[in-house]
């Protein structure tokens, strides 16, 4: 399996707090069956500003250690950018790295508030020849309240990445329901773990996979966890199936 959303790099953001923890997480990931991992630590202007070069150095050093101890995990560079007006420019200048040096850019939105320039950012990224991936849409309140907004993002050309653990209710019931809604509508293209700590998500992967298999079946799970992420790593453009419309619920 390929994990395209993690916070395993030590001391860069609110993810792993030490090198020890990073290696524990990597071993857990290996146990859980992940062979390729993108280290997508946060990039938040004014808060976590590790640029592409810093990340590359650290990843390469980690990879060297991993190779020495013969854990066959391959690490890739990446970042989870926080949406801002300047974000597309930072990607263009190479300060925010794309995932595995491909065209795909992973970014997140604020969880609880509404940002009015999402469409604009998506448009600018696509105009620059990048492909935007929006991280964990099921966790945003705007999507929970009106899921059809996520379909609009897809129609504009964005991809959506859901979190594995949402399906077992780690981020609350609203997230879980929203995820199921989005999965029904064919609106999720990737799965990632978004792991921040050791002993958290990787150790529960068995249950999570079981749950996913129950809900969407083996074949689709394979597409979301393996086939589509593989396209990201190889920087291949692909056209997913069209999403269905989601009707807005009047009463909730």
């Amino acid at each position, binding site marked *: 399996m390929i994990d395209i959303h993690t916070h395993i*790099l*030590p*001391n*860069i953001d*609110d993810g792993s707090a030490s*090198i*020890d923890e990073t*290696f524990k997480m990597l071993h857990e990931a290996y146990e859980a069956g992940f062979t390729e991992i993108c280290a997508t630590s946060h990039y938040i*202007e*004014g*808060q976590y500003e*590790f*640029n592409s*070069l*810093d*990340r*590359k*150095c*650290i990843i*390469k*050093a*980690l990879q*060297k*250690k991993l190779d020495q101890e013969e854990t066959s995990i391959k690490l890739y560079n990446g970042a989870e950018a926080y949406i*801002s*007006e300047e974000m597309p420019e930072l990607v263009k200048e190479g300060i925010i790295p794309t995932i595995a040096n491909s065209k795909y850019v992973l970014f997140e939105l*604020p*969880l*609880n*508030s*509404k*940002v*009015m*320039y999402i*469409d*604009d950012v*998506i*448009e600018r990224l*696509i*105009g*620059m*020849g*990048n*492909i935007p991936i929006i991280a964990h849409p099921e*966790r945003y*309140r705007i999507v929970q309240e009106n899921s059809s907004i996520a379909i*609009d993002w897809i*129609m*504009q*050309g964005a991809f959506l990445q859901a979190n594995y653990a949402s399906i077992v209710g780690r*981020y*609350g019931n*609203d*997230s879980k329901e929203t995820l199921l809604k989005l999965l029904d509508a064919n609106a999720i293209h990737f799965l990632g773990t978004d792991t*921040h*700590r050791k002993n*958290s998500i990787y150790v529960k992967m068995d249950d999570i996979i079981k749950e996913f298999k129950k809900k969407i079946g083996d074949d689709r799970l394979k597409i979301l966890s393996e086939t589509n992420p593989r396209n990201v790593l190889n920087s291949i*453009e692909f*056209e*997913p199936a069209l999403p269905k419309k989601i009707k807005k619920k009047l009463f909730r």
Partner: protein
Amino acid sequence: MKKEVITQADPKSPVSEVFRALRTNLQFMNRFGKSQTILITSTVQAEGKSWVSANLATAYAQTGRKVILIDADMRKPRQHKIFSLKMCPGLSNYLSEVNELGRREKFSYMDCIQKTEVENLSLLPSGNIPPNPSELLLTEKLEELLKELENEFEVIIFDGAPCLLVTDSTIISRMVDSTVLVVSHKYTKVDDLKEAKKRIKSVGGKLIGVVLNRVEISSKKYADKYYYANNMMPSTNVKRAKHRESNEEVEEVKPRKESSREREYIKPKKEMKEDKEYTRPKQEKHEDKKREEKIIQDYIDDKVEDTERKIMEEIEKEKGKRFATVKEVPSDKAREILESINNYK
């Protein structure tokens, strides 16, 4: 400085996140117009004007802009308390040319401005409470002041008085680029809000939005605690933390949307590729990549000092060139992390 300035005290909290969103939304709504001066006001008192303006100003200052916050509520001034600064001399002293002891004295505006603990943020406090604030604001000196400040600062934020009770804010709204109303959940009356909107419009002020304050958010909404748990404010601020912002479009500001709706999947625009500023010969790019690889490798192989010297020399050599091949070296923190990885086990 009080803990009220959450954007500074705790930049990672959900409340700060909301203020950053508010800041960028304001910037976005005014992308094609000038938005240097912003007035924050409300219908009646105690809706959260001062708190919102202090935090918004801090959020602006954090982007590196030079920001000044003006306490234009000369009836119940609060900003100097929030930032723990002196109240005099301030706006009223500057406008009336009377010092705090009641003697005539001419102030230059720089005398009245104080630096806050927040980098890039200055405060012009209210000054003594004058008997006639509205008349003071009507003098030409305010417009002069505004002109001077516009040269000096990039963002100017007014914390105004409530606009239904007194006319102070209505007067200021004529001069500023945009006016924002703070309304309080389950407190502000709809008719009051309509009246406030009417008053601001009647003098030609540009009302660009409403901030909805004091919305109760069930703790469930923050179920994603693992993200923020360590950063939540201590319990003293529980009440404060129950805020949320929502922007309502009041006027013709509309983010453009329609054009992109029907676009097909992922078709990069061609014309962007021809953008001259960013096209570079392929060969050069390739060399860049090779060079970067080498730098990284050297770092990992612990040849740090040697490479560093070389890079510094190269940076020095390429200063002023349009496309410097070596842009930077890994930051100190990254180097620390690298070192500890290399020493691990």
